[in-house]
């Protein structure tokens, strides 16, 4: 007597997870270049729906310059005491291109909502999914206008920080 309980099964949850994903950002102006890297990004991937979820702790961004990290987290810029996290929730819009069971490199489009300092904006970008030996790596690079997320500071520093910031994502997920 086989009774199928498909009706009782919960929706297939996120099956891939990373706790040390890498997200970096880069700003370039004639005055100076600014770069910071966060290697503590937590992210999930649902290979059935193509849904991505990222959570980034602002304090996790590390800078080479000693004082830049302090200014970045301070009230004037990211105000990480009030807004400790940034997040992205979205999905691969052309999921049929990807076969998660086969090793390979796939170009995809990802669309979703990016939230920084409690401001949410829609973001669509292209990316690469690399499936290798059971691990999934997601890479992407996209640009944002920081003013849209209220990341603006004093006039004296503004010419050192580009209005457009390039964000790079490089996360390798393991199957749960």
């Amino acid at each position, binding site marked *: 007597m086989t009774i199928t309980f498909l009706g009782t099964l919960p929706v297939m949850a996120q099956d891939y*997870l990373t706790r040390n994903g890498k997200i970096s950002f880069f700003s370039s102006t004639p005055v100076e270049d600014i770069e910071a890297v966060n290697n503590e990004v937590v992210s999930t991937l649902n290979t059935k729906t193509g849904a991505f*979820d990222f*959570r980034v*702790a602002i304090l996790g961004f*590390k800078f080479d310059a000693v004082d830049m990290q302090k200014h970045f987290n*301070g009230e004037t810029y990211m105000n990480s005491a009030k807004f400790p996290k940034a997040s992205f929730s979205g999905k691969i819009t052309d999921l049929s291109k990807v076969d998660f069971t086969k090793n390979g490199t796939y170009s995809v489009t990802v669309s979703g909502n990016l939230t920084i300092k409690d401001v949410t904006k829609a973001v669509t970008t292209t990316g690469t999914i690399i499936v290798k030996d059971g691990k999934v790596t997601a890479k992407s690079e996209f640009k944002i206008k920081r003013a849209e997320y209220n990341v603006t500071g004093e006039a004296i*520093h503004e010419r050192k920080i580009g209005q457009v910031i390039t964000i790079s994502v490089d996360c390798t997920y393991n199957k749960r």
Partner: protein
Amino acid sequence: MRLIPLTLLAILLTSAALPQDTLDIDKILDEEMNQKKDKTELVEATFKTSRIIHGHSIENTAKGILDFKISHRFGTLNNGFYQLFGLDNATMRMGLDYGITNRLMIGWGRSTYQKQYDGFLKYRILRQANGVKAMPISLSFMAAMFFATDTSSLRNNYNIPTGVKMNTSDKLSYAYQLIIARKFSTDFSMQIMPTLVHSNVVPYSTDPNDLFSIGIGGRLKLTKRVSINAEYYYNIPGRKLEKMAGEELHNPLSFGFDIETGGHVFQLHFTNSRGMTERQFITETPGSWGKGDIHFGFNVSRVFQIGKRKS
């Protein structure tokens, strides 16, 4: 009809057996960040820069950072309008502080007053920290050496007649200081500085060469960028100089504002001290607040990153 309880049982069993559950991603990130937090968190920025007003604060210049300091002291306000309340009489110290490691810093400077060269080392012994290995205070040790080259000023201060030759050791003095500091809140920090100044030459034969004092200093942040600072050194009776060049000596008391803006710290202050280094301002302050011997002064501090920070 036995199917229904069987079905219910099966549902329960299969739900329990399913490994898939919706991940609470926020919770995972919090756990990850807290794991880092379970480590000890060092308390930073007890003061805005490595000096409170004249004297050292608990702060060290960070590793690889060069801090260029220019300090001005003008004449006393009671000089009156003709001297533009002291602005016409300025003394200056130029200095360079450098962070060798995050715990050890070195500094050099030259003051126009007495044409004095100075050098010091400051080492952070204890760092105030919260978390697993909590430490309620920060503790530093500072050692400095001073070499005054304006012999006419020295002869005047130390009663050395023109006929007598001055040796190099007569121009040397030293200061040793323990700095005990605590950042009570983001806005309020305080420190205590037991200090020993050793002067090879003193004005009178009855004066001790080892001069002891206890300093107290603090800062109160008014805004993100502006703080009000105060500094006072109490020279211990019996272990201090009383008089120099006919003037009675007093304990140094200074008040100031720190204004921080993009890589610079500006310090504006009022003080009764003439000098800017330990021997001069702690043990040889002839000015008295009561008599209006108040000097206006300012320090400018500009930091440059020289070494690369190791992440």
